[in-house]
């Protein structure tokens, strides 16, 4: 009987953890989108007021960001200032691969980041700012959707975890 109780407890704990992890995953995704929005705003201000070059911009903004976005910006700063043997596109693609490994963003969100790589670096400052403004609006829209989903998913995943665990325990007993 003790073994059954212990086993049931373990199943319940695992199930709750899975539910919590799903909720947490959604929370991190929303945070990352929020960090991306901050990043775009920082890039815009660095371009507009300081007219800094991209390696400097990424180096400046990396410490002001959090999580995987900060790591990615740090990588970009390092590669852009040291690696003068690869095109921007290649460096950006490599950066995205690293970011993708660390990040919880879905494929749809990653498309925005790929788009960002095609936008920055070229043209004049005004055109850059206008393009970044548009991208900001798109990501902000995604962020709002994810933010609304976050509470629902957290509650749902939490409840499902507990209920699923209880269900499994009952079946096993």
């Amino acid at each position, binding site marked *: 009987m003790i073994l059954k109780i212990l086993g049931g407890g373990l199943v319940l704990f695992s199930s709750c953890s899975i539910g919590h992890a799903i909720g947490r995953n959604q929370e991190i995704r929303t945070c990352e989108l929020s960090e991306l929005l901050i990043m775009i705003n920082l890039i815009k201000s660095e*371009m507009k007021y300081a*007219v*800094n*070059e*991209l*390696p400097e*911009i990424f180096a400046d903004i990396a410490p002001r960001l959090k999580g995987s976005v900060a790591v990615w910006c740090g990588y970009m700063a390092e590669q*852009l200032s040291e690696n*003068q*043997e*690869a*095109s*921007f596109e290649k*460096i950006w693609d490599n950066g995205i691969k690293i970011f993708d490994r660390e990040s919880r963003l879905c494929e749809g969100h990653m498309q925005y980041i790929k788009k960002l790589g095609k936008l920055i*670096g*070229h*043209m*004049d*400052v005004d*055109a*850059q700012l206008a393009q970044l403004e548009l991208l900001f609006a798109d990501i902000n829209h995604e962020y709002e959707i994810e933010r609304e989903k976050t509470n629902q998913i957290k509650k749902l995943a939490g409840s499902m975890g507990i209920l699923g665990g209880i269900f499994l325990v009952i079946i096993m007993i």
Partner: protein
Amino acid sequence: MDNLVCMPKGHIDGDKHIDEVLKILSVRLRRLVGRLSINWCELQEIRLRINEPIIMIYGNREYFVSEFGMLTSNSDKGLVITQADVKETLEYISNYSLYAYEDEIKQGFITIQGGHRVGLAGKVVLENGIIKCVRHISFINIRMSHEIKGCSRSVMPFISLQREVAHTLIISPPRCGKTTLLRDIIRTLSDGNDFLPGMTVGVVDERSEIAACYRGIPQNDVGIRTDILDCCPKSYGMLMLIRSMSPQVIAVDELGGYQDIDAVYSVINCGCKLIATIHGNSIDDIRTRPGIRKLVEERIFERYIILNGAKKVGQICEIFDQRGSCLYGGERI
């Protein structure tokens, strides 16, 4: 006369120069140009045009670079530049940030590390008749910087008057070495020499040709007491320098507009000495220009140095004082 030819073999570090230039070329071109076994000090220009062969001006002659990394005079053997080459080269030139060089691109050039100048041409976008930007850049001309230290040695005795600097105007046709001479005069005045003690020199470097600042740091040696206003219009810059840096000498390249002339009067009235250059062939030639004529007639400049590149780049043709008396070469005017 020959002893005053002011362009001796300079102290040019060819390897350093080529490293600075190689790193802005696309990887394909970098490997190719890097394979050339030439004297890099003699390299003057590298020209890239989309769908045309790469051209190098080397030892005053034009060459193409073959796919095997050899110089050739046959254009058919020259490696053809692709759009990707130009795009990649532009990324390296601008450090992946073309937007940050918007103002420079509008002027048609970017100064890179080492003071080399990259000329750009493409489709110009106008807004209200003013250049807004240059798109589809398809033509790149990399001009190697050739700083020649010591080339002003022969003119220094003429521009020093009783341990003071004379207001000096260097008159020269294009590509005859007037900026190179001005740069060395600035360096010599700033560091001090046998004729003059070192003095504070303010330079308004409107087109980054004199000091060739890269990220604010002069790439050419302009002396230990020199302050530079980079990319600043001469007329504003001269006044800004007087107010902020209290220079003893102000140096500017290519005087021209009326605003420049007004600023020259401000410099002179403030007690600063002026060293300037202007395009032209002779004093008579510049006298035909309204603004400059006034300066000449009022005998503002105490020395005129006339350069001529007919025999050799940087050859000093004549030196006159304010009354038109010939101090060196030529005849009294």
